């Protein structure tokens, strides 16, 4: 199909943990049956709390983890059928921590030039593209020969973005790109990411727990909980008419000095996120859900349509809203 760039078809990533000597081997279902697509030029927001599997899913899309089940189809062909060099030209990642994700012993020039050289780009073109990329992310030519420690956090994240974009990939996975940055720097980076997306015709998967950021940048949003998507839809549907109690709890949890009050305190989740090693029966959200009923303990709700492009995995999806 030409109108999707990335298609995930029932993708699962399971890990085996433990040993036969200590309590037996268990299966950790980090990602458990995700079906999703990303269209060209689109930004998909991926929301969820720690342990929900969003970063594992990102690694599977990058081809860095082999899925236990399901297919990852990128730009028309299966990820497993491509070489690493080919995959690198298609999909790249921007990481959360710009202090940990840049090699401290490499100058910016080398960090940006190495991917091009590996792809066989000639020397003159490498220089030109590095300089061009630096300008695009708002760094000056003289920055090319400096080392990461000479930059502030915001500038480092610009370098991280330049590295991700230097091969002109089609899809960029941004894993919490601003949450390690100072509050006053975040707007610069969000604006830059959006500008570059339009300029270079990129698609993004924006992974974040910050719903304000996700609403601002996303065209569509998927909400993950314990390895599965619990709600998916256009940004307006997710934020204006959320149908899964977990989505509502996430929105209700945001401190709101303006008392937006569309979603009240009653929507808040209680208790802690269960372990993915020991999933609750039925709906995995039921132990924390304000709407829990008997049916939720026994029967797992499937992701079903609320409206044509809006899906929620809740028995009561039609009662909310």
């Amino acid at each position, binding site marked *: 199909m030409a109108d999707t760039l990335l298609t995930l078809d029932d993708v699962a990533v399971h890990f085996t943990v433990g040993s036969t000597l200590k309590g037996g081997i268990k299966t950790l279902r980090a990602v458990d049956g995700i079906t999703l697509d990303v269209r060209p030029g689109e930004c998909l927001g991926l929301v969820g709390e720690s342990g929900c599997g969003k970063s594992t899913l990102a690694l599977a899309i990058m081809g860095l983890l082999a899925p236990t089940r399901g297919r990852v189809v990128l730009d028309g062909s299966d990820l497993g059928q491509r070489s690493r060099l080919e995959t690198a030209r298609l999909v790249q990642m921007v990481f959360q921590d710009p202090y940990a994700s840049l090699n401290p012993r490499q100058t910016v020039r080398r960090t940006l030039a190495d991917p091009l050289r590996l792809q066989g780009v000639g020397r003159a073109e490498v220089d030109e593209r590095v300089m061009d990329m630096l300008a695009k992310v708002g760094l000056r030519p003289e920055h090319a020969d400096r080392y990461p420690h000479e930059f502030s956090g915001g500038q480092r994240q610009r370098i991280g973005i330049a590295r991700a974009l230097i091969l002109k990939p089609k899809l960029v996975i941004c894993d919490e790109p601003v949450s390690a940055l100072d509050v006053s720097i975040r707007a610069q980076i969000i604006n830059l990411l959006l500008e570059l997306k339009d300029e270079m015709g990129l698609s993004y998967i924006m992974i974040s727990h910050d719903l304000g950021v996700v609403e*601002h940048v996303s065209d569509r949003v998927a909400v993950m909980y314990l390895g599965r998507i619990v709600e998916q839809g256009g940004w307006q549907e997710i934020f204006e008419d959320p149908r899964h109690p977990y989505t509502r709890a996430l929105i209700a949890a945001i401190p709101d*000095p303006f008392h937006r009050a569309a979603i009240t305190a009653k929507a808040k989740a209680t208790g802690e996120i269960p372990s993915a090693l020991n999933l609750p029966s039925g709906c995995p959200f039921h132990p924390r859900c304000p709407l829990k009923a008997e049916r939720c303990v026994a029967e797992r709700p499937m992701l079903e349509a609320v409206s044509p492009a809006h899906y929620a995995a809740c028995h009561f999806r039609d009662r909310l809203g």
Partner: protein
Amino acid sequence: MTAPLLRVEDLRLALAGDRASHDAVEGVSFEIGRGEAFGLVGESGCGKSITALAVMGLLRAPLSLAGGRIVLDGQEIQDASAAEMRRLRGKRIGMIFQEPMTALNPLSPVGRQIAEMFVLHEGASWNEAMDRAEEALRQVHVPSPERRIRDFPHQLSGGMRQRVMIAMALACGPDLLIADEPTTALDVTVQAEIIDLMAELCSAKGTAILMISHDLGLVANMCRNVAVMYAGRIVERQPADAIFAHPRHPYTQGLVDSLPRLGERAKRGRQKLREIAGVVPSIAAYPSGCRFNPRCPAATDICRQVAPDLTALPAGGLVRCHHHG
């Protein structure tokens, strides 16, 4: 008008460097009334956490107190001895830190760590103290506290550990709870629960809170008054609702405007976020005049030359800006 519970006056904290000493915090003053929640907001390096450490008497080299007074309930404590401060901490001042795993003793069951508070500060017997520890865990909504008191910190989730920290901090009914980024390490839905819990317990016991965070929204929601710090100085202090609705300092205005807010896009469509130009200055190179001037859209010559003082706003509150009018 009763005297405030905590008064910090003209606090100056020095950071000793290799060659020179720098003022990490300068001229910081604020008051917290009994039972009042007060917020201190700023980015990393602005001096908010070391201000809290100074109140607790926990400054260590290379940081030192270089001036100012800290008055707790009428008593000056800035020069108190280590032993006196130890008696105050835990009894009169409770503390919660960002990362509960590093603040709890990994080798001791959590019940024992809470019970220790009653033994040390109230002379309780260990038996009685353990019973009270169980009750304290029940108050912070830890499920099955009779079993949990025997758990070690690593057996608990992050949210549960922070509940244990709150139980410890509030065990002896302190007058003041200092919470330094208490929910930054937690997930958002757990954060909401912990904040509600802190607010509920403190208002039930009449405990004042000094809440320290980088998250203006979180603080404004919970506190009556909020002070914003930038580069070692308080730049604005206002009641919480006013600081969001009418921020007067260009830095606060930038913070309020620069973050995408939920619901904005639906109302107004996607607007380009307002950026605060530049970066936070390093402590060794604070600019002259107003420390925000290199990043300020409204900066003029006077801002580059003369450091502004905190001036009172007609509607209450304080702002440190030459052009606030």
